[in-house]
């Protein structure tokens, strides 16, 4: 089994408080790995640590994060910037906030491509339209020229996913990608993710929704209060949860 991302004993502090304590897990190449836990369990802190975009005050005390066998913690600012968006990219929970309201969807996607590739303007436009079509946004040229507030919630989330995909990253971190959508839209976004997995995309899915995770993920890591309490293949854990907390989580979403 090839692992794209390996987190070893990651510990994050804010002041004297420990947010993550010796968190270790691996994300297999071409699979969906889910981080599951209640709010405050440190899921998003892990995502921000991987991107090296922790809010001020939060510090990584020790640990290592191997991405393609290179420790991200040893990267300097500029190296890290070139990783973001191009090698690892992120899908945010709230797409309305994550898009700049003054720029069209096309302009914002173009910005990402312009940063990471040296393609010409018309090549970039073609790529953007391709990716918009790939996330099943019909009439991609129409979407290209829209401002974020002019799209529906589902369209915005797809546009967000398209933006994350536009520079062909190796790893996608999806932070609660469906929690703001209604159930039918959730199902369609999950279909989209399944489709991407078939194409070999590696994904780190962050969710509090064990029900959704059980349908989508290959591996699951259960977090509680900043510690990994259980991890393994999704079927194994769903059939025989060892930890009490996991059992409670499962009951909540049964």
């Amino acid at each position, binding site marked *: 089994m090839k692992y794209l991302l390996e987190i070893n004993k990651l510990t994050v502090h804010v002041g004297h408080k420990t947010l993550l304590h010796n968190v270790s897990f691996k994300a297999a190449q071409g699979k969906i790995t889910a981080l599951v836990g209640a709010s405050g369990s440190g899921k998003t802190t892990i995502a921000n640590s991987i991107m090296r975009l922790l809010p001020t005050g939060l510090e990584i005390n020790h640990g290592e994060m191997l991405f393609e066998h290179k420790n991200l913690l040893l990267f300097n600012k500029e190296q890290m*910037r070139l990783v973001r*968006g191009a090698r690892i990219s992120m899908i945010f929970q709230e797409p309305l906030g994550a898009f700049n309201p003054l720029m069209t969807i096309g302009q914002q996607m173009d*910005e*990402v491509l312009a940063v990471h590739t040296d393609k010409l303007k018309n090549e970039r436009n073609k790529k953007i339209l391709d990716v918009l079509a790939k996330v099943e946004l019909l009439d991609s040229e129409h979407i290209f*020229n829209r401002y974020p507030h002019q799209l529906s919630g589902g369209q915005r989330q797809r546009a967000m996913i398209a933006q994350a995909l536009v520079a062909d990253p190796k790893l996608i971190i999806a932070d609660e990608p469906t929690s703001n959508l209604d159930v039918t839209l959730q199902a369609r976004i999950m279909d989209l993710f399944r489709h991407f997995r078939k194409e070999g995309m590696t994904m780190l899915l962050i969710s509090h929704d064990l029900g959704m995770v059980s349908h989508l993920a290959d591996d699951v890591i259960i977090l509680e209060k900043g510690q990994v309490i259980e991890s393994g293949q999704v079927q194994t854990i769903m059939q025989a949860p060892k930890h009490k907390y996991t059992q409670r989580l499962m009951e909540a979403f049964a």
Partner: protein
Amino acid sequence: MAKNRPTENLRPLGPLVGREGKPYSQFSIAMAIFWRHRLARVCFYVLVCLYACAIFANFLAPYRFDDEDRNYSYCSATAIQFFDRGHLSWPFVYGRTLTFNSIHRREYLLDMAQKYPLRLFYGGRLFGVDKPGRIYIWGADSRGRDLFSRILYGGRISLSIGLVGVLISFSLGLLIGGIAGYFGGWVDSFLMRLCEMFMLAPGFYLILALRSAVPDNFNSLQVYLMVVVILSLIGWASLARIIRGMSLSLRQRDFVLASKAMGVSDIKIIIKHILPHTLSYSLAAIMLTIPSYILGEAGLSVLGLGIQDPVPSWGNMLSEAMGIVQIQFAPWIMIPGIFIFITVICFNIIGDALRDAFDPMFQVEG
């Protein structure tokens, strides 16, 4: 102003989607709202006229700015005559003869014997009269230079100084404010202390101090540039502080984090994601700041520290009007003041209208 809007100035706004189904940007919507403000539109046209006059001063003015004739010192305005002894004729001006009245004041009497017909396209200029006749539409100054011509030429300096000054101080203010707010920490502290150093000295005295550091042997272009730079150095600090505050709150927004997560560089985030959000404020502020540059230049020039004679600016032309005697006997030398006034008022009204237009609370009617 924002509370009780002049609704009678508002025409209904058309549909908010442009041709080819492309939506209007926030900017173009604001511009459409601005354009419905009738008074602001009038002011806009007035300014366009003033700038056009300044640009084409070479052609519109009958004399060069330094074309002097000491025989006509403080000569009053020359009326253009259309009737010659009761008969309609081609417009002409009478000659003037200098006499002294009972209190030994200069008085220019019309000399009916001399007639100088108005010549159109005379010597590369729109109009003029043959020598030794002179045409003074708004009278002459102490050296017998045509005030009208000098106002047109003076507009070049007075009207451009605001634009150039604002360009410099706003680029500085936006960039420094944006950087300080975005990065925070010691960068912020350092830049803000720097701003405070500029803000702490009373503006006009700082201008005077900086001006005295400029060598005397500068030519007029160098003096002009120095005055602009000095005025801009005063202006950027307060703007930088406000932009810094906005940037401080904008950097917390999700789309800034999202851009970082997409690997966009810091300077690009500041320019493309932070500063455009301050546009509504800064555009109005630009319009409201331009007058202060015009007035600043005028203030310096009135004291003789700005643009040097014979190159005219509205400010140094006004410096002639500092004596009560001159105002009493040649009140026309205050006309440049009227131009300063009109310009300042126009910029202020446009600035106000822009601020309203960008106000998100503005109700789009119709």
